[in-house]
């Protein structure tokens, strides 16, 4: 994917040559030269993959619709290298809760990517909820977007990245 930011241990940087691409079902069927890249499958394709018992050699990922219950991914969580969650509009906040559930409840460990209307001013909140990579909207420069992850991001409540709420750390004056 183009225009993407990744994080390593919370530190953000531009991902050059990101190997992932969003695959629609048709492209998957054709099994064409896209093979050189890692595929992000739709939920339906992931289910189909299971049925055909195809042995995936390469890493693969899945993309959820904001309405999907992330619980459906439970059987695949260890084998998925990437899960993409969508922001159809940046004001649609369902993916924040999906991210929390995947990380905080189901223990998903690999890359969690924000796709869609992904903009600088929401990146810090996304990171708090467990996103680790960000396919920034393509008309927005990454150098600007990176600033969204390098600013102040203190919150009071707990989050995926800060599982202890501030009130449990406050007296330590950390």
């Amino acid at each position, binding site marked *: 994917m183009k225009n993407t930011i990744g994080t390593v241990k919370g530190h953000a940087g531009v991902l050059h040559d990101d190997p992932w691409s969003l695959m629609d079902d048709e492209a998957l069927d054709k099994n064409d030269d896209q093979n050189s890249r890692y595929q992000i499958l739709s939920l339906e394709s992931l289910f189909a993959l299971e049925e055909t018992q195809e042995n995936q050699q390469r890493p693969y990922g899945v993309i959820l619709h904001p309405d999907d219950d992330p619980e459906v991914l439970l059987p695949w969580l260890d084998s998925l290298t990437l899960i993409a969650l969508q922001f159809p509009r*940046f*004001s*649609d*906040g*369902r993916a*924040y*809760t999906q991210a*929390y559930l995947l990380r905080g*409840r189901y223990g998903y460990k690999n890359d969690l990517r924000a796709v869609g209307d992904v*903009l600088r*001013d*929401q990146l*810090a*909140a*996304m990171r*708090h*909820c467990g996103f680790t990579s960000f396919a920034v909207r393509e008309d927005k420069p990454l150098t*600007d977007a990176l600033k969204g992850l390098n*600013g*102040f991001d*203190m*919150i*009071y*409540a*707990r*989050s995926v990245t800060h*599982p*202890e*709420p*501030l*009130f*449990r750390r*406050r*007296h330590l*004056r950390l």
Partner: protein
Amino acid sequence: MYKYDEYDRALVQARVGQFRDQVSRRLSGELSEEEFLPLRLQNGLYLQKQAYMLRVANPYGTLSADQLRVLARIANEFDRNYGHFTTRQNIQFNWIELEQVPDILQLLADHDMHAIQTSGNCVRNITTEAFAGVAGDEVMDPRPMAEIIRQWSTVNPEFLFLPRKFKIAISSSECDRAAVRSHDIGLYLYRDENGEMLFDVMVGGGLGRTPILNELAKKALPWQHILTYTEAVLRVYNRHGRRDNKYKARIKILVKALGVEAFAQEVEREWELIKDSDAELTPREYQRVATGFEPPAYEQLNTIDLEYGAWLARDPEFGLWVKTNTQPHKVTGYASVVLSTKPGSNSPPGDVTGNQMHAVADLATRYGFSEVRVSHEQNLVLPDIRKQDLYSLWKKLTKLNLGTPNVGLLTDVIACPGGDYCALANTRSLPVTRAIQDRFDNIDFLHDLGDLTLNISGCVNACGHHHIGNIGILGVDKKGEEFFQVTIGGAQGKNSSLGKVIGRAFRVEEVPETIDRLLQTYLDYREVDESFIGMVNRVGLEPFKERVYQTNVSKMAALSSDTEVNIETKTGVPV
């Protein structure tokens, strides 16, 4: 009051820097208006008909005298010398330049204030009653819990883009004076026989186009679970609330669709998974926050103050004011004083000038403990006044035009700013407010009517809470013409109810006569000491309908000499 520590300060300061950057990106064109909109809304900035409006948070309606002076300064230096106190206990400034907003936010942050989440589809200012901590009938002080929930909900990353706005209110008195039942989450806080703090949690209330009172979802929730339970409610709402239609996006629609029991079960399932976690509140945190709300150094005063008693006997006007504008205080010899921001048709409800704010701050310092409250009825409150000082305070308030003895009476109107300011409103609520205040300006008549709430909204968004007014007025647009629909029987508090429409809507000039007929019906039917709402509940709508619609209201209005309403020349916009 709660005292900011370095964390709180760092957050509001950082937020100013962030918004300054966002404003400059908007001004340079880097951010489109569409992208800027949710960012400015979460910082309290609306684009209204004629200018930007900035809404500043007054957490659960508390302000120090110094903070009120800062608001006065904003009114005088950045606005047209006044501000407007709102039904969410906030204040809004109506004539703001976008370029100046970062400087205003800086001024606020330097005094431990902010405008964070006073708008937008997120958790809004937590409200409680204006007499929290001092009310004579209080079970316990709700402010520490309100502050804890405020902190938890501030920039909570999972819940910044909910389907719609989300309002939480909390009350802990015999009388609910915080309109708890019309909130997305309403909380009643109390103690059990062992002194443990418990919450009754009600969900799914809201006014607007589909008014609904909230319903009990969880009884007797132990206090340390309030944050996890709220988190569970918000998570269920964020996942399942409707996003396809703005008017069906509030949590009340989801609760109604599922039924409160099914909704509560869903929340319970979610809550079971998170309640025993680090998110559970600690006694240490409660103590830390509660320390800020310890009672000030009250004097030991006698129950009876001779001088105060003498003035009551000597000056009946003072007696009238004491009757309506003071509230019993939990400490002997003290009272809480309500400053009416509704002196009549010369000033819109909730509007207070910068100079008045300065003067009130000085009075709070001189007579009280330098604290001021904002009530959701849009009045100001001095919470701790010695009864022996009431007479001299009253004299000063009268000079400031803040001493009108009408609190809780017909002319203590709750009204939204309406079409004179608001881009959403389709009618102007201020001219009809003025028409009513002009018609009913006889203070003895108002006192004879007794407790009576009148709420006016300029559109179905119901910012004037017309559904829960004893008399409610809703402005509706019919083919470009303003009409006003009248409801009666609404009430807030523990016996909350939604008003019922009495019949066809009226033109603005017909409204005062209509109100008069409602009042005459009440006076004819009332039994000894029966309030307006009590009488409506007893006899129903019929006698009111009969009286109001028996003859043409507009003819009556034309015949009546004291209904000259100068509605066209007043624009409602002080210059």
